[in-house]
């Protein structure tokens, strides 16, 4: 409850939460509100928005609003799955390296650095191109390019915790490594991990949109990046095809960032009275 009270003190975090809730609701109700495939032709192509269709129709007469709702599902799903993947791998790698140090640390960090030297987005493009575009390969690609940042962060936290007295005490008491790591260190560095995770969700949504924009998305799944990519040739004649999904991406990513910021303020003890 104290957490919630601290959280609502930040207006921007609340705003982020509100926007994100709307996106989640849209995603959750998409199959009911817009039943059938979002690729289905519903009417004449290029009907302007706010007429018989809320956001108009696109080049093949598809309902843009249906695309936005179904695209929200894709974006959130990919964002969450990729983030969970990146968090698990990153936490394990970073945790092991930070806790044991020495040779283990050296080896794991060199591996992490190897991944960090490749430009993130180019690496993602490469992976998707090799694995053939599908939801699965996009999730894998985003997770693969996102985990090193988590690993570095977790390693730093673990190293700092490792030398703290209560951890030293635990070790002296003869606790197993597993118990020290999971019962005592991990809970104490959870807050920066959560904050980083929320930002990775936002980045993942952007990477997915960029991949789809370049035509590397799953051709059978509606997504916001795909809608922008398909609509960009008509920017002069049908502005809504790019603008509406663009605004959707902007608002969602902004909301997640605000939320992440709010979580940071709430969870970080040093910022509690800010």
């Amino acid at each position, binding site marked *: 409850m104290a957490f919630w009270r601290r959280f609502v003190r930040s207006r921007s975090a609340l705003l982020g939460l509100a926007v994100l809730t709307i996106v989640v609701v849209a995603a959750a109700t998409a199959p009911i509100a817009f039943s059938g*495939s979002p*690729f*289905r*032709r519903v009417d004449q*192509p290029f009907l302007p928005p706010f007429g018989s269709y809320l956001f108009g129709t696109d*080049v*093949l*007469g598809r309902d843009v609003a249906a695309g936005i709702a179904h695209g929200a599902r894709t974006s959130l799903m990919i964002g969450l799955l990729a983030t969970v993947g990146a968090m698990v791998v990153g936490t394990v790698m970073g945790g092991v390296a930070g806790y044991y140090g020495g040779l283990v640390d050296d080896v794991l960090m060199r591996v992490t650095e190897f991944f960090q030297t490749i430009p993130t987005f180019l690496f993602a493009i490469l992976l998707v*191109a090799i694995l*053939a*575009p599908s939801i699965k390969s996009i999730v894998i690609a985003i997770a693969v390019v996102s985990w090193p940042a988590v690993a570095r962060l977790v390693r730093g936290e673990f190293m700092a915790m490792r030398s703290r007295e209560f951890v030293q005490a635990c070790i002296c008491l003869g606790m197993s490594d597993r118990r020290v790591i999971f019962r005592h260190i991990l809970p104490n560095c959870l807050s920066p991990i959560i904050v980083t995770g929320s930002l990775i969700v936002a980045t993942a949504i952007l990477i997915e949109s960029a991949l789809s924009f370049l*035509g590397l998305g799953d*051709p*059978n799944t509606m997504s916001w990046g795909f809608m922008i990519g*398909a609509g960009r*040739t*008509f920017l*002069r*004649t049908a502005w809504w095809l790019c603008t509406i999904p663009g605004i959707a991406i902007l608002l969602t990513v902004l909301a997640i960032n605000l939320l992440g910021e709010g979580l940071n303020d709430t969870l970080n003890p040093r910022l509690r009275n800010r």
Partner: protein
Amino acid sequence: MILTRILRCCLVVALAGLALMPDTASGQKRGGTLVMLVQPEPPTLASYLSTSGPIGQVTTKVYEGLLEYDFNLKPIPGLAQSWTVSGDGKTISFKLHKGIKFSDGKPFTSADVKFSVLEVLKKFHPRGAITFRDVVDIETPDEHTAVFKLANPAPYLMMALSGYESPMLPKHLFEGTDIKNNKQANSPVGTGPYKFVEWQRGQFMRFDRNPDYWKKGRPYLDRFVARFVADSATRTAAIEKGEAHVGGFGAIPYSDVKALARLPQIEATTRGYEMQSPIVQLDFNTTRPPFDNQKVRQAVSYAISRKFVIDNVWFGFGKPATGPINSNFAVAGLYTPSVKSYNVPNGVEVANKLLDEAGLRRGPNGIRAEIVHDITPYGEEWQRYGEYVQQVLAEIGIKATLRHEDVPTWLRRIYTDYDFQLTNNWIQTLADPVIGVHRLYHTNSIRPGVVFVNGSRWASPRTDQLMDMATVEPDPAKRGVLYKELQQLVVEAAPLVWVHELQFVTVYNKQFKDLIVSPLGLYAPFDRVHLDK
């Protein structure tokens, strides 16, 4: 009174103006630079080794052919000023223009013709092996006469002698060298109206006027530049602002063409592609279920709305196709519209009925079959087209999953591994059915590893026989009869869906005149292009 005086004044000025006109052969204005947008950048300038589209757009300004063509697809003089075909169709003799020189000063003679055809084109050109397969020898009784000796009559040969399809090369620069790795490849020397100057990779190629061009007074322009701009919106803007003057073959996105054409200084035309004649298709794998069944293939063909695809995916630049031969061949008497028509208003209904007859019943979820639909990786239109087909197939109970791969993977899947069920595609049917059409339907075109041939793997003894007969039939009327039967049989069997005849658009600046003067369009030598003012 005053009016008369002003008029008289004007008349005098006008006459003086006429007298001052430059004294060229046909009174056209000399000078100017034409900038053409070529997309994508050609990988090489060896047009005798590769038929990749953009190569021809630049090399035809340097290399010429024995013949050119008029809009009735009839040969007209090129490097050859006249020709005679013997009664049995097995001897064709060309009389070459006198005084033609390559741009390095060496004369062009019948020896160059013999060398180009027998030593280069027949051996290395991707289509040359077919085009010149019956040419057993070329006799050169004198410097200006080349006599083609054929094993069989080859009426299609006369359609394949343009500078685009069969460039005439300088023997003295190629003889005794490794043709595939000749260093002349990217600094071509030809007889054409322009001389190659430089190629800045990723930016432009420059060609300057050839002052010794054999057509006196031509070309009228000082310079021809090919520019390479990767981004389509930038290309549109370059044409709009007058930085570039002409672009074709899809260099300008279809969605921008209409807006550009409304500008007073811009003209858009679909002429000049009559010797390409591309057809947009859906290719079935006729050896795998469900498309091994003719009725299922016909059902898909019925379900596709040609009008929707043309209007919404290609923005009106197309014409419903009726079968394997493009209606551009009507002027040559080789096309017939009297075939089974799949372009009917109640297509989806007919399709559902046919599928029921074929025994492909709907399951409890309304699905008759599940397939994968491959998308040809040549750009956005193809993806939209794939999405449309996916929706139409859903309406007739076929659940299609789209698959999008890169060009080499797709080519291997369709033409080597045959690991597909349905793909969208397009094929240029070129200047004669023997060169452009037979390759898609003949048994001997089922050649794993060779791209853009019979990947559907449908063939029948009768259609093979018809094509073999048409190949050697010199009488155009009799060829027409053979092709009529071929079209009827192939359309009935439906190894492909012929959706529409794709119309390329050339967008150009009106200050240039006589740009598109033949069915070769942008593949013409551009010796007649001139500035208006």
